């Protein structure tokens, strides 16, 4: 409230000074926006094919490069999950699926999906494409560093994938890479595999830091005239907060990678305790495996929100656009994003309840973990209240948003189970945990990614994706994913342990064999359904319906560029000037049901717009 007053007061002052200097006009200028603080950005324009499409400094091209590379790794992760489900549902069908390969697949699937697909896609892909467009900048502030950032990521992916082809294969220590087992003989890929994994992660962190600094500074220091922080679309808030989290959390991953590399290569004992092997002591002595767990989860928990916060932001925008209503409680949403981000640094040890830590320590982390439920629940209520009495378009984008809300609530509620020490101890290491985190940070963010691709594909390519194929894609993915993960909660309750290569002889499984096979079949179908999506992408790229300008009647700046798809420099001659937030949909008294951010107040005098 007081902020608004302040802004009004400031505006009045400015108007006063302006009318006194530029006298003669008499009336006050309600369209006044402060003049530009910064000179026009200096841009490097590529001329050859190489500088335009390969070593390109245009954030939009870099975003597409990030997206394609991340999706490629995602397809590898998907194929790995197929093979895992093949082994779990129908064991010993393929002779090449040994216990070793199974563990290698588990590890690579986890790491690829969390880091190389989701993080890279949300921040590198959507971040690069959308940040300059949505805040009204010509490009990222350091285009050269941005380019290097992508190529570092590319090298990291190449190093990671090369571990499939080295002697011993990729590491099979689980995506958490816990020492001492990760680097000891007997774990698959304890030679080259783990080394390449650690090198790849370090490269990823270095590359990401260069990109992340770009995102943060572009959002803080390169917004266009009139674009105050509280007028930014929530997508930008989500990506911004996630990037800050990443810049502060990835250091822990870098440090633990360096230390484990030294343990592996030089024989230091940072994480390695005294170990007796076949009656003989190894050269390791006195290190602390728990230290690695702390470092890893100090990265690992914020990582969950690095993936979730951009998803929160993007889904807020999609819901608002496609229900033709302003986002409910915009400021609350912003503070919830920031609050979740801050809290995420104080909850990491809830991943370590069974590591033997003091119960009082667990009590602290259980409390902080459950506090996160408050801002998260706020966000869910606000999404639902945005839909409430909105003019909802049931298109593919909206379906994916609704799918997100359902899977996210489901995964969030099981998170409250697992956040409590007393409930977590019996449930950890069962399929309940698999169900929880696949719901909350696998399926839910993927729903947003799909929704976002259906939403922004027309901006990137100028053509709409096919709606009919999109609906097929949604329903098979959504119902299929539910069929995979919902029964897993039950498997967890009856005590089926996770990460087991084969469990048919265990007493837990006898009652659930049919369900287990059902889950596998569902997984095959969901995986195959993604090829409908890829087909849709390729087909629509060439034959899709031309989208024209602003096909969704959206307000935010990315749809208001002079050229669609936007060209290098984004805005043609003049930068846009922003007069309002991005959520003026269905405003009473307005001519259309949307008022773009660039519409000056004098054009919509009769509309009862929010003061932003």
């Amino acid at each position, binding site marked *: 409230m007081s*902020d608004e007053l*302040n*802004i009004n007061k*400031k505006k009045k002052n400015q108007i006063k000074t302006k009318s006194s200097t530029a006298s003669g006009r008499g009336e006050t200028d309600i369209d006044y*926006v*402060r*003049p*530009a*603080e*910064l*000179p026009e950005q*200096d841009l*490097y324009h590529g001329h050859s094919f190489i500088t335009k499409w390969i070593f390109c400094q245009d954030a939009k091209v870099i975003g597409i490069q990030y997206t394609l590379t991340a999706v490629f790794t995602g397809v590898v992760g998907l194929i790995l999950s197929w093979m895992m489900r093949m082994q779990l549902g129908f064991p010993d069908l393929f002779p090449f699926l040994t216990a070793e390969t199974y563990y290698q697949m588990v590890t690579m699937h986890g790491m690829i999906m969390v880091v190389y697909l989701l993080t890279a896609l949300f921040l590198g892909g959507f971040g690069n494409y959308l940040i300059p467009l949505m805040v009204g900048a010509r490009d990222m*502030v*350091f285009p*050269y560093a941005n380019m290097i950032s992508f190529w570092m990521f590319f090298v990291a992916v190449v190093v990671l994938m090369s571990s499939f082809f080295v002697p011993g294969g990729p590491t099979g220590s689980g995506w958490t890479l816990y020492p001492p087992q990760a680097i000891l003989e007997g774990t698959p890929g304890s030679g080259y595999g783990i080394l390449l994994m650690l090198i790849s992660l370090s490269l990823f962190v270095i590359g990401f*830091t260069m990109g*992340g*600094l*770009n995102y*943060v*500074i572009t959002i*803080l*220091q*390169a*917004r*266009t*005239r*009139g*674009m*105050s*922080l*509280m*007028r930014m679309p929530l997508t930008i808030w989500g990506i911004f907060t996630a990037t800050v989290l990443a*810049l*502060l*959390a*990835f*250091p*822990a991953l*870098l*440090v*633990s990678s*360096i*230390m484990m590399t*030294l343990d592996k290569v*030089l*024989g*230091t*004992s*940072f994480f390695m305790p005294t170990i007796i092997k076949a009656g003989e002591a190894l050269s390791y*002595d*006195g*290190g*602390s495996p728990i*230290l690695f767990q*702390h*470092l890893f989860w*100090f990265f690992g928990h914020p990582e969950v929100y690095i993936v979730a916060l951009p998803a929160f932001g993007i889904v807020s925008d999609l819901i608002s656009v496609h229900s033709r209503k302003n986002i409910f409680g915009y400021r609350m949403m912003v503070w919830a994003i920031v609050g979740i981000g801050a809290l995420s640094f104080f909850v990491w040890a809830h991943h370590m309840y069974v590591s033997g830590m003091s119960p009082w320590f667990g009590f602290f982390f259980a409390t902080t973990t459950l506090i996160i439920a408050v801002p998260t629940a706020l966000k869910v209520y606000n999404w639902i209240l945005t839909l409430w009495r909105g003019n909802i378009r049931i298109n593919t984008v909206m379906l994916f948003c609704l799918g997100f809300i359902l899977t996210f609530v489901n995964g969030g509620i099981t998170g409250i189970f697992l956040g409590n020490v007393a409930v977590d101890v019996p449930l950890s290491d069962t399929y309940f945990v698999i169900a929880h985190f696949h719901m909350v940070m696998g399926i839910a963010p993927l729903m947003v990614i799909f929704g976002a691709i259906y939403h922004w594909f027309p901006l990137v390519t100028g053509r709409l994706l096919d709606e009919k194929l999109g609906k097929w894609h949604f329903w098979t993915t959504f119902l299929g994913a539910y069929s995979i993960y919902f029964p897993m909660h039950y498997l967890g309750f009856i005590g089926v342990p996770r990460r087991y290569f084969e469990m048919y002889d265990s007493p837990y499984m006898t009652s659930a064999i049919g369900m287990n096979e059902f889950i596998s079949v569902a997984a095959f179908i969901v995986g195959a359904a993604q090829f409908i999506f890829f087909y849709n992408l390729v087909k629509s790229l060439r034959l899709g319906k031309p989208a024209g300008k602003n096909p969704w009647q959206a307000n935010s700046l990315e749809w208001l560029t002079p050229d669609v798809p936007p060209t290098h420099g984004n805005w043609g001659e003049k930068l846009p000037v*922003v007069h309002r937030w991005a959520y003026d949909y269905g405003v009473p008294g307005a001519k259309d049901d949307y008022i773009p951010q660039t519409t000056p107040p004098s054009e919509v005098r009769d509309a009862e717009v929010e003061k932003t």
Partner: protein
Amino acid sequence: MSDINLDKLPGGFKGMSEDIGSDQTTFKGVNWGKAMMWIFLLSDTFVFSCFLVAYMKVRASVVEPWPYPSEVFALEVMGVPVPLLLIAIMTFVLITSSGTMALAVKYGYEKNKKMCGWFVLLTAIGGLTFVGMQAFEWSKLIFHDGVRPWGNPFGAEQFGAFFFMITGFHGTHVSIGVIFLFIFARKVFRGDFDTGKRGYFTTMKSDYVSIEILGLYWHFVDLVWVFIFAFFYLW
């Protein structure tokens, strides 16, 4: 070009909240590169904090006795072991180079090409001296005292591991800084910052603000050294 008269902006918390709530820039009048360096340093602080916290954790939990730094890092001067002699000189040199860096920034903003260049060069030489002394310290520990990352004659083997890793990581930071200082010294003397010559890689115009950005990095590296000094040599 700009309507911002920095002196006329409201100060204090009120000014801060107005700046943050305003359009275009959150940090008024702050160059992009400078803001970027601050945020990078925040991230880098987390890297060094992780290293030092890991060191403290392991030092607290290791079973074997931790070597006594005053003895390990002593130098013999005329038959008398002087504890931390080399480290004291190293620290002095590095802190002094922070002073010369500050002067370089001052002369840079005054567009005093000659003085700025000399002070950047002096800072680079200070940094190089530091790295040289560190190389001497390492070789003494390795070849004379037999300290290795995987073991040492004085006690807990993590002593060598953490020592080489943390000082090595810091030394790498100093070395990168020294390389950039030499490059910048050349650029200053050549007049790039006066003519706004475009960078070879980035194709962006050169500006004296880069000296301050490099200075931020350099002061940070010095500050980190103070913590390493306190935690490693004095504890």
